[in-house]
Each structure stands twice: as C-alpha cells, then as structure tokens.
C-alpha cells in the first residue's frame, strides 16, 4: 500500500507539471492593436511607413523620353519608344495595398485614445498621401476605383466596384488635399509632409487638371484654379522662408536648403538605406550596373548658351559644344574633357569619353571601339568600357563622395518638389490665363539663377503660344533627370510630335575622336581646350529607331490585363478598346 501511495503521489506531481498549459503562448514578434491606437509614437511610426512606400526615390530615370537613353548594345529603348506599348506596359495599379493601409489608419485615428493634438498632423499626412497615390493613378489611367474605407473581408462582394469617373477622382483628391492642408503643420522637420508640401502639391495637381491631357476644351476656369493654387502656395512658401536657392549646382549638395519642399532624405551610414548610384556612373567608377540616365544629345542641345541664345547645331560646331554654355549645362552634363565630378576623379582626371586609334596603327582603321571609349584612365589600364554610347554621363545629383565600392551608399537627397517647380507651375498657369508678365518674370528668375546673362536672359517669347513653348523648353533642362519630362510630354499631349521630330527618329549621341598621335592622347587633368584642334566630333545615333504610337495611347495608359481579370466591373479605356472615357 505504501508503494501505491507513493505512486499516486508521483502521478500527482506529474499532473502539476502538465498543469502549466503548453498552449498558452505570447506572440513575441508583434505589436498589438491597442498599442497603435493608444500610443502616438506607434501611430506616428505607422504613418512613417507610408513614406517609405510612397515617397518617390526615382534615381534612375526610365528611358521613356528624350532626356536619357541606353544605347549600350541591344536596342535600348523602352516599349514607349519602340511602339510596342501594350496595356501591360505601365503598371501603376499596385498602390492599393498602401491605400488600404492609409484607409485603416483614417478609419481608426478618430477613435484613438491619445490626445487630439497628436492626431491632427498624422491625419493630415495620411490624407495627403491618399491624394498623392490617387493622383498618380489618375494621371496614368484617368479615373480609377475610389476606395476610401478599408474593404470588409466579410463582405467581399461589396469590394467589386467599377472605376469612378476621372472628375470624381479629382474631386476626391482635392477634397483630401484641402482637408490635409487644414490639418498639417505649417512647417515640419524636413522630409515630413507639411503645409508647404500640401499646398505645392495641390498646385501641381491642378496644373495637370488644366493641361490638355485632361482639359481638351481648354476650360480657362481650370487654369485659373491652377494659377490661384500655385500663387497661394508661393505666398505661403515665401512666408515660411522658402525660395530659390542661389546656386543650381549645389541644390543637391547643400542638402535641406530653402528650395527643398518635398524630399526623400538619404544619409549614410547612420541611416541604413543609402541609394544606389551604381548604374549612373561610368562603369570604371561603378560596380556591376550600367545604363541609366545617359544624357541624349537632344538634351545636351537643349541647354542655352551663356548669353541666353539657343545652341544651334546647324550653325555651331560640335567640337566646341561645351564652350560658353549656361550654368545648368555644366551642373548636369559630364562630357569629354569635363571637370572631375565624382570622388575618384578629383585631383586625378577629367572625364574622358573619346575614341582613339587603339592599336596605334592607322592602317587597320581601328580607332576606339563601338559603345565605349578607351579611356586612358589613371585608375584603369585603358580598356575598361565606359558604356555610354551617347558620349555623356549625368553630373547632376551625383554623390561626389562615394567610391566604386560604395556606389550603393549614395546620400544625396531626392528632391521631389522644389520651389522652382511651384514657380514654373504658376508661370504656366499664368500664361494660360493671360498673365504674360507674371509668366515671363518666372522665366527670368529661373534663367537668372542658371547663370544666363542679358536683360531678358535670352527669353524672346512674347505671345502666349511662344511663352508656352519657352516654358516647355525651360522645364526640359531645369528639371532634367528629375522624373518630370515624360509626364510633362503626356500632359501637354506633345509626346508623339516631340519624338517624331527627332532627325530620322533616332535618339542621338556625340562621338569625339582623337586624331593626334596615340601617345599624345589627352589624359588626367589635361585641359580639353588646349588639345581641341586635334579632336573631331560626329553625331551618332542609337541602334533602334524611335517608333511612337498615337498621342491618345500615351495620354491614358491601358488598364493591365491582370487587373481586368480580377474584376469584371472594371472597363478598359476607350483609347485601348474599352468603354471607359477617361475625359469624363
């Protein structure tokens, strides 16, 4: 019996051991719902996440237009320029996941348990981002499905909705923006959305809405609204101490200057995400990636002379194309013989992209090789390809400090909206509403800052049509590589005409060839001007001809097939064979 008692005793102890429930566990990796709505710091972190998803970071300008091109072998043209664009080419439909995250926040923030004062700006930022993301879709496709509440997973049927009209979407975008502007702080820490950002962006939205892409009847009321919004934004920006930064080249080097309004900041290494400039540099100074942002000759040509006159390829010599150009040219374009502009070059060598008699034997006729320049670099042995067939590299926005092995850790900020854009937006709207003088005044300011001389800084336009053209040309160079050109061309509905106007419908580059003795070929810090007489220049073109479709195909993209497959209520745009009219 004693044994039995002990046995029972031990079983009892075992039961105690079992008593601790192995199924009662905690999710150690998670933040709980009540933490989000009860703690303003967590709520703010939720908002910060939207910045990471939506703030543009477009360092590699896609080869969609005439400002940059990859002519490195292959045909190097995007589907937009090859004529092979389909409904699937542009996919801007992937932001609904972010919209859902924004809607979850907007649905919950009013009931959050922390102080109202903490809610205002957060709510304003989220409304701003919702307007931002819908505007991105509308400018691509016209009206899209307007989702303003997080869809209820228990009622899936209700989430199958058709596209709203373009005007209904614009109304909602402006409504969100107005509400956001009310709630936002006047001026926040740089990088965060504040009233400066909200008002500036509203000016951009209304400018698009007034532009031919949406405004086929040229309704002046829309231009007036755009004018007033930009005007109001400028007044507010001025009051907050914003303005044009005096030095164009340093806009991206002196970070957080007064011209910066909306920005994605980069800082390395104290902030983990540097951005990669690997693809934008000569391969000699880069790593494993090539082919982005090579300026076309079309862009190079567009820069004015220092006296404000136009560069005219018909009468001027490409051998001296780099002499006496305006300031933005030198800030933006690296060309054969240009001064060092990235870190390994300083004190060592200029940019050399010329071709020369590589085998030192005139009889073979081999001089240089296609798609590269035999760079007599002090860093290379003279034969690593550079890979800019156009003969140019971008100098604008390049991080001057990173080296070949740290090209992925650039820390130049991406400025999405700067004061100059708001000015130019205002000028365009002013011109369309008959305020010619105001428009010209903006062009003067912009060109003066660019270092152009003369009383009118080379601006000769006086009619509304000429000023419109002048503004279009000005935006091309002022905002080169800033991700605006493609959308501007669509907005003005001149994409097709601009691209077709290219000679033989090619994008072009410039080939500089050294004709002197190979041993004397310039290298290191040789002044290009001292040896220029031994160079010859010839215009070269890309491999493939540009083929463009009807302007209507560009004005509104087709809705991708995969999106249509998932919801029968969505109609395709009428320019792509569907029933939806994006102009309504």
């Amino acid at each position, binding site marked *: 019996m004693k044994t039995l008692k002990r046995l029972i005793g*031990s079983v009892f102890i075992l039961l105690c051991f079992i008593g601790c*429930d*192995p199924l009662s566990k905690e999710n150690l990796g*998670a933040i709980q719902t009540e933490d989000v709505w009860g703690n303003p710091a967590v709520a703010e972190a*939720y908002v910060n*996440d939207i910045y990471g998803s939506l703030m543009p970071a477009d360092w590699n300008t896609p080869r969609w237009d005439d400002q940059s091109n990859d002519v490195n072998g*292959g045909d190097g043209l995007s589907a937009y320029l090859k004529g092979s664009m389909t409904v699937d080419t542009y996919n801007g439909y992937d932001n609904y996941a972010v919209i859902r995250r924004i809607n979850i926040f907007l649905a919950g923030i009013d009931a959050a348990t922390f102080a109202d004062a903490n809610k205002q700006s957060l709510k304003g930022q989220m409304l701003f981002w919702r307007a931002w993301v819908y505007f991105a879709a509308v400018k691509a496709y016209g009206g899209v499905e307007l989702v303003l509440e997080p869809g209820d997973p228990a009622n899936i049927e209700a989430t199958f909705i058709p596209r709203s009209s373009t005007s209904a979407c614009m109304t909602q975008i402006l409504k969100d923006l107005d509400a956001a502007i009310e709630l936002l702080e006047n001026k926040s820490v740089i990088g965060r959305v504040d009233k400066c950002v909200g008002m500036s962006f509203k000016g951009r939205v209304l400018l698009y809405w007034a532009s031919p892409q949406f405004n086929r009847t040229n309704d002046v009321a829309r231009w007036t609204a755009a004018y007033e919004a930009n005007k109001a934004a400028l007044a507010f920006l001025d009051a907050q101490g914003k303005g044009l930064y005096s030095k164009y080249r340093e806009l991206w080097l002196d970070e957080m200057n007064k011209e910066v309004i909306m920005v994605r900041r980069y800082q390395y290494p104290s902030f983990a995400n540097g951005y990669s400039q690997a693809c934008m540099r000569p391969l000699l100074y880069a790593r494993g990636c090539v082919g982005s942002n090579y300026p076309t000759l079309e862009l190079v040509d567009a820069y004015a002379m220092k006296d404000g006159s136009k560069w005219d390829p018909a009468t001027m010599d490409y051998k001296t194309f780099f002499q006496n150009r305006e300031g933005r040219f030198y800030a933006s374009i690296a060309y054969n013989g240009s001064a060092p502009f990235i870190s390994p070059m300083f004190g060592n060598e200029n940019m050399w992209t010329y071709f020369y008699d590589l085998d030192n034997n005139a009889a073979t006729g081999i001089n240089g090789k296609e798609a590269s320049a035999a760079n007599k670099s002090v860093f290379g042995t003279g034969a690593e390809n550079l890979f800019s067939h156009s003969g140019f590299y971008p100098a604008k926005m390049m991080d001057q400090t990173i080296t070949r092995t740290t090209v992925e850790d650039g820390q130049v900020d991406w400025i999405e909206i700067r004061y100059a854009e708001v000015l130019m937006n205002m000028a365009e709207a002013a011109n369309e509403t008959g305020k010619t003088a105001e428009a010209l005044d903006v062009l003067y300011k912009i060109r003066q800052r660019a270092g152009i001389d003369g009383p009118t800084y080379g601006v000769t336009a006086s009619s509304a049509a000429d000023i419109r053209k002048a503004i279009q040309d000005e935006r091309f160079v002022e905002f080169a590589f800033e991700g605006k050109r493609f959308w501007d061309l669509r907005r003005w509905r001149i994409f097709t005409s601009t691209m077709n106007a290219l000679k033989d419908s090619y994008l072009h580059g410039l080939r500089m060839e050294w004709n002197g003795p190979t041993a004397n070929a310039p290298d290191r810090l040789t002044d290009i001007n001292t040896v220029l007489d031994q160079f010859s220049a010839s215009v070269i073109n890309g491999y493939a001809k540009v083929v463009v479709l009807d302007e209507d195909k560009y004005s509104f993209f087709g809705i991708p097939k995969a999106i249509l497959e998932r919801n029968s209520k969505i109609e395709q745009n009428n320019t792509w064979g569907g029933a939806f009219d994006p102009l309504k």
Partner: protein
Amino acid sequence: MKTLLKVFLLLMFSIVSTAGIYAQRTVTGTVTDQDRQPVPGANIVVKGTQTGATTDANGKYTITVPTTGATLVVSFVGYTTQEVAVGNSSVINVTLQTEAVSLEEVVVVGYGTQKKSSVTGALTSMKAEDVKFIPVPALSNTLAGRLSGVYVTQRSGAPGFAASIRVRAINTWKSTGLDPLYVIDGIVSDKRAFDALDVSAVDNITVLKDAASGAIYGARAANGVILVTTKTGNVGKFQLNYNYSYSFDQPSKIPSYVDAKDMVRLMNDARANENLPPAYDAQEVAFFNENDPARAWYTLAYKDPTLQKHSLTASGGTDKVKYFLAGTFFDQTAFIKNADYQRYTFRSNIDVDFTKNLKGIFNVAYSQGTKTRFVMQEDNVGFDTNADFGALWGRLLYYLPTVPPKTKDGKFIDPGWIGNMLAFVEEGGMNTRIERNVDMLLGLTYNIPFVDGLSVSGKFAPKYAGMTMKQYELKTTLYQVKKLGTNSAIYTDEITGTIKSAYPNKERLVRVQEATQSYQLNFAANYAKKFGQHDINAVLVYEQSEGNYDYFYGLREGFPLLQKDQFWATSAARTDGQVSGTESEFGRASFIGRLAYSFGDKYFINATARRDGSMLFAPDKRWGTFPSVSAGWMLSRENFFKVSFIDDLKLRASWGLAGNDAVGGWRWSESFATAGDYLLGTAAQPRVRYSGIINPDLTWEKTSELNVGIDARFLKGIMFSAEYYKRHNYDILDSRILSLPNSFGGAMPPVNYGIVDGQGVELELGYVGNKGDFSYQIKGNFGYSVNKVILRDVAQNVRALDDPNGKSTDYIRCLVATDIIRTQADLDALPAGYTIYGLKPKLGMINFEDVSGVTDGVADGKIDSYDRQIIEGSHALAPYMVGLNLSVNWKGFGIDVFLQGITGVSKFYNDGYGRRFFDGARPPSFWLDSWSPDNTDAAYPRPITWDRSMDHLESTFWLKNSSYLRLQYLNFTYSLPKSLCQKIKIADVTLILSGTNLFTMTKFDYFDPSGSEMRSYPTMKSFTMGANITF
C-alpha cells in the same frame, strides 16, 4: 526541469519489486549457421526472464536455466530468431537460418510495435544495415529508391546537402508544408535531427504512408511519418565495430561548353548577321584559335572531391543493463576549393532493468555538423538552403570567356566590374556554419504487477538545436594587365596596376546565432493481453511539447587593425556595426489512443484517435480529432484457403484522417509589426505596418485517405505487397487573393478552402533464396502517384490554360515550338505581319504554334504569352519511381547492386544564359549544331544576339524528358573466413569496394537530370574503399 527530476527519483525509489527465486541448472551448446560455421556473438536468453548469455568465438555458450519449463530464445542479426524448449537436455546445439523476409518480424508503428502479420495500414521499412556502406552526408540520401511510395530528390550533391523526402502524392499546390513528420525513438523530431543521425547508430527506418497509420500523429501526419529506431545493445559479450571508408568523388555530369575558337566564330557570325561589328578582331580570333585561357577558371577552382567516414560503435550488456555507444566522423569536400562539410556524432543508448517490472531508457545524442565555404556575394543569402554555391561553379564555365583568372605567376587578374570569381574562392574569406543538436531521451516503463498486461511509462525528451554562422568577407587584390586586340580581349601577363576587388563593398564579419530549445513529454499506459484466441492491445498517451526559438544577428564592418575573423579586429565605430534578433514560442498538447484487436491471428482490427491542440490556432479552433480505422484478414489461415504455393496471404483496408499544421502561426490574432525605418529630418524614424487581415477560423489542412493493400508470401521465399490509395486533401490553407479585386488592396488572410485529390499504387516484391554456398536476394519496388487540383481560387476571367483546377499540381504550360524556320519558303509561308513577341521572324529562329490572341482561341498572327498551351500528360515531378536491389553472397564474397529510376517527368533546359545566345559568354556546346545557311537541318536555332530573338522562351523546344535510370550503388564486399578471423582474434573483417551513382541512363543530356538547373551542384559519382572490423 527540477520538478521532472523529482518525478523520476520518486518513481525510481518508490517502486519496489522482488524477484522470484527459482531452482536452477546449467545448459551448454554451440550455435552454428547453415554452413556449419560457428556464430560468435549470438544471443541466448531464457524466455520470460532477463537471464542471457552470448556465444564465444567458437559459437559456444553456457547458460543457467530454471529446472523446469525453460525455453531458450536464440537470436543474431541477420538470422531468424529460434526458440528451443530445453526439456531435460543439458546440451542444446542450434543451427540458425539466414533470415528470410518474415511476417513474424516486428515492425515499428506509431507509439509502439506490432508483429508484421498484424499490420493493417500501409507502411514500408528498411534496415539501416542495408545502406551502412553508402557514403553520403545525410541519412535522407540513403533512402532514394529503397522504399515504395517514398520519393527522394537529391537536388544537389554539395557537401552536407540532404535530399528532400516526400511520401506519396503531393498534397497541395503550395511549395511549403510538404515535409513528412520525423519521429526518432518515439519522439517527434524534425528533418534536421534525422539527417544528423549517422547510419551506424540507426537500426531501422519505417515510413507510415497512409493516413490511417499516420493519424496517431494527428495534426502533423498528412505528409506521412518517418519513424527511426536507433540501435540498442544486446545481452552478451562486448562488441566493438569499426568502419572506415574513403571515397574519391567526381561530379556526375558537367555541362559542356564550346572551345574558345568556336566561341569567337559563333559570336562574330551572330553579330554579323545582325549587322553589328564583330566582337573579336582578326588578332583576337587568331589568338583564341590557339588559346583558351578562360578554361582555367574551372580548372584552377577545381579540386578532386573526397569523402571519408569513420564510425566506431560499442555495444553489449548484462541482463540488467544494455548499452550501445557510437561515435562517428564524416568529412566531405567539394569539387571547388575551400568548401567542406564535417560532422561528428556521438550517441549513448542505455537500457536498464531496475527491477523485474521497472525499466529505464537513457539516450543521449550529440551531433555537430560544420559547413565551411568561401564567401561570395550571391551565395550569402540562404547559405544553408542554397546548395548551389550561388551558382558559382556553373559560372566558372561560361562567365568570362576570354579572361584568364590569373597571370602566369599566380596573380589574380582584374577582369573589370564582374570581379574575379577565383579570388572569391581562394582569398575572399570564409563562411562557417555549425549546426549542433543535442537530443536526450529519459524514459521509464513500469509493468504494473497486479494487473497482468498493463504497463505505464513516461518519457521526457529535451532537445536543443543550435546554429552558429560566421561570415568573414574580405576584399582581394586584383592586378590589372595590359590587354591586346581592338576589344582588349587578349590578356597579357604584363601588370599595369592593382585594385581592390569591388565586392564585398565593405569588409565585414557577421555572426548569426540561432537556437531552438524544446522538450517533449509523454505519459502512456499500455495494456496487452491474450484471452484464448482474442488478442487485445490498447495504448493511451498524453503528450505535450513546448519550446522557444531565438535568433541573433551581429555585423561589424572594416578591419582597421588586422584582418582577422574576430570582432575585436573590426571597426569599433557604432556606425560600422549592426545587430538584430527575434524570439518566438510554441507549444502543443495531445491525447492519443489506440485499440488493436485480433482474433486467432486471422482477423485484425485497429482503431486510433488523437486529439491535438496547437497554439498555432485561435483558442476555440485549437483542438481537433484525428481518427482512423483499419482491418486485416489473413486469408491464408482460413481452412478453405487451399492454394499450396501461397504461404501467406493477407488483405488490408484502412481509412484515416490526418492533418498538416505547417501553416505558420499567429494569423488568427490581429497585430502590427515594425518595418525598418525611414529618414525624417536628420534622424531615422521607426516604421510600423499592419500585419494583414486575420482569420480567426484558421485551422490545419486535412487529408483523409483510403488505402487497400495485399501482402503475400509464396513459393517459400517470394514476398509481395501492393497498395492502392486514394487521398482527399481538403481545407488547404491559402490566400484567396485572385478572387479579390485588385482595389481591395490586400491579401485576404489564408483560409482553409482548397481541395487536391491524389491517388497511387505501390508494389514491393522480394525474393530471398540460397543454393549451396550461394545466397541471393532480390528486392524491387515501384511507386506511382498523381494528384489533381479540385478546388483552387482563380481570377474571375482567367483563361483555361492558367486555371489550375482539374489539373495536376505540376502540370506544364508553355509555348509549343513548331520547328526552326529553316528555309526561305518556311519564312514566306508565315502570314504577313507575323511577329514573335513583337519581333519579326527571321531564318533560323524557332517558330511557335499560334493558337490564341487577345480573343481566346483565335490565332492572331502574333506569338505572345496568349499562345502558351497546356502540354498534356507532362509532369514536372515524376509520377513513377522504381528501385531494384540485387545481392548475392558466396562464401565471404558479396555483391550488392542497386538501381533507382524515375520516369514520366519532363524538365526545361532552364539555363537562361545558354538558351538564348549571349554574345558575352561562352555558349553551351549544343550551339555547334545550330542553324546556318549551310546547316539548315541543324538541331538548334541560329545563334542570334541577345534580346533579338525569342528562341529562349520556355517552349516545348527546351522541354525534355528527364526520366532516368541510375546505377545508384554497386558494392563488393569480402569477409575474411571465420577461421582466419579466429586466429587473429577478430570476430569479423569485411573489405568493401563500392561505387555510387556510377551510371545514369537518360535522354536529358544538358545536365544532371536530378539537379534543378544547369548550375545546380551536380550529384557526385563516388568510388569507395572501406573496411568494417568487428572485435
């Protein structure tokens, strides 16, 4: 833990039992085999007691037996166990018979063992003895083709890489949650612990294939259960066994690439055809006609791979304590320098009979596996799972086709931005990954003395699985050399400068520590009793397990002092360092029961049930019940059964329900998670993101399965068994994303909705026989399995082609290639405006069937993704598998041959670089037979410069039958004659000479057909010499 210890002490000391005292006498005798040779080391036990003895070197034994009614049980590995009644004899000689495949064999089933004759489910098993000489790094790799219905895929032959195991038809379209459950000595474990076992410590492996057999493992058994039993000691003499083998390996198949002279010719031709300037000038062409310096990438990185194994085991025991101890060492090197796998294992299994009724088991196992490998950028992610060395070895064959890796005096050449791959291998640093496993098992079984047949037991199994990784990445010094030729393709040895390699972007040291600690606790009651013809066996178990997982990551960059793989040598600046980590917890509880009943060894019924609770699911969805029933009928024991050549015939049927809970945790509970940071102002700010819509109804996936089987033994030596099964997998958990509009903006949480049905047939046939001095054995198995998706979400307007419903999970869809466009007439026959993915067709291109366009089913003169078709009858996974084993023994000589094959499977030649002609890399050799105006009958299309043809698209042109039959194993053994062994006082000496993976018959000739792609690390061909010595 403390509580538990107390429990054991209490149990040990509180239970007292008295051994009976009987009158005794002595019996002696000799044990011999069929050849009249003495059998040393055989076990003799007095039935029903713990009294035992072992034969000596001459096969002689002496044992004490009770005066009356004693029976001796004589056993030895490889022989049929015999029982001999002692009667009045004092000398009993026993002749052991070589073990035939026997229905009296005991097999392991879930939570116990059963006589093979009473098994009613579908299970298959193998003895580790059969594979003990196969030189492979992981236990999984030995299973290939051995067991019907068990599909083993050796995707890579990289050192230390374990094959994947699937049991029967794949249950789901998903690529995760397909692993069977691993159970080691009754403790639920995992694949990693399974692969860490050395074969010398394993007794047998049993696979529970049908849901009825698996249901006793409940929510985790849907993919089958693999049960492993490790060895235990035998009562008798101390036995020491040492086994050593050394293998010379070589890659089974290396893809073939053209020589430099063909490369320059093909490339220049390809470019000329596109009006592009040549890639090589006359000087370069002349040079490469004579030289091929880039072949050195492979030859300099290559190293003859080797593999060696040592294992030392000791076993023995008295009637109170039995022990089995094992220590093993394994070392395998790669065929690329600086890559190696080493493993140590130790095991101690001790069985103790404390008293007549109280038994204890104490098992401890430790294993440590170390993978070391050179570091390279592409290989850093998933170092453990990416067994392909970041595809590096493949690149050595084609990447830099003109560049020599080193100058004549051994300096690494700078080949430009791609970097020098050989420098990574030789001087780029090291990645060392160490896995440590500690598994313990403490168990007590108490036969309750006052209830006959009732025993209770408790098992406690703590487990630790740790991983540490050290990654040490260095820059290398590269030398720039003078280059010749217009294209600078000719590298000279004249050094012009040096540069540090661009990768890694920063020199760094990374440490990763990962550890899982867990335990499993079981309490069981077992009741086994025979009442006349009725035989009852009942088991009741409570089981619980808990554990936690801990992950830590640390990184420091820069080596200001010295280059040394220690943190102290790295930069101390805070901006140069980074740490992170996560933790999680898990827990389960289960109640398990089984009732087995048989009548007259003729009718068998088995019923099991398990109630499983898992914290992976919401509290009200946590518990589920998994039942099974099965029955067997030994037809041959019926009186009316009078088929003389059939010895045994049994029919079986089973039904069961099993689950799969490998579905991730916490999706039932709403949460948010941090998502990195974002820079605002001058400070990084945290980010938080909603973790997604939850599904509080989440539960496990289920498989119900019906299995019918037949087991037969006829003509005294032929064993046959066959199974047919039909599986119904339902409640498959997946997100129904495609049925939502995109504007919903989120994935719906996974819901249990999908259905996949599977079915298959398995056959096993064996024959054991002997004639004179010959004994031979043939074993064959065959498996067939297919599945079909019954319900899976698709988008509203999807085309039939992309609708997975009604098709197998591995169906293949692609363009159908018609032929190469061989002649101008072919080209002219194409409709006006015909395009292939936007390109105009040209001579020598592959053309495809135009079957559809934007309007479904209407040819539109454009080849595009709408023209993809279902390739009927093709499978990406093999539906058929065969294994065939022949062994013959004659006097000490033995031959063992093992063939393994799969069929019915197709594979894309999926090398993106090889399939399209890339004028920057060395082309695969098949381009030698490519279309040209002079070779219009070529097997391959015209080499057309990158991106200017669509020949490379996945099409039937590149889809090939990848079935194969492989001579997996050929083994010669020679055992020294027993008489000679006795002279040198050694029980047994066996010499081994074997070859693994010697020969593969296949139509798929691009690369190793078992590899997943061209750059997958190929399986190895091994030549092994070894010896096995038993003292």
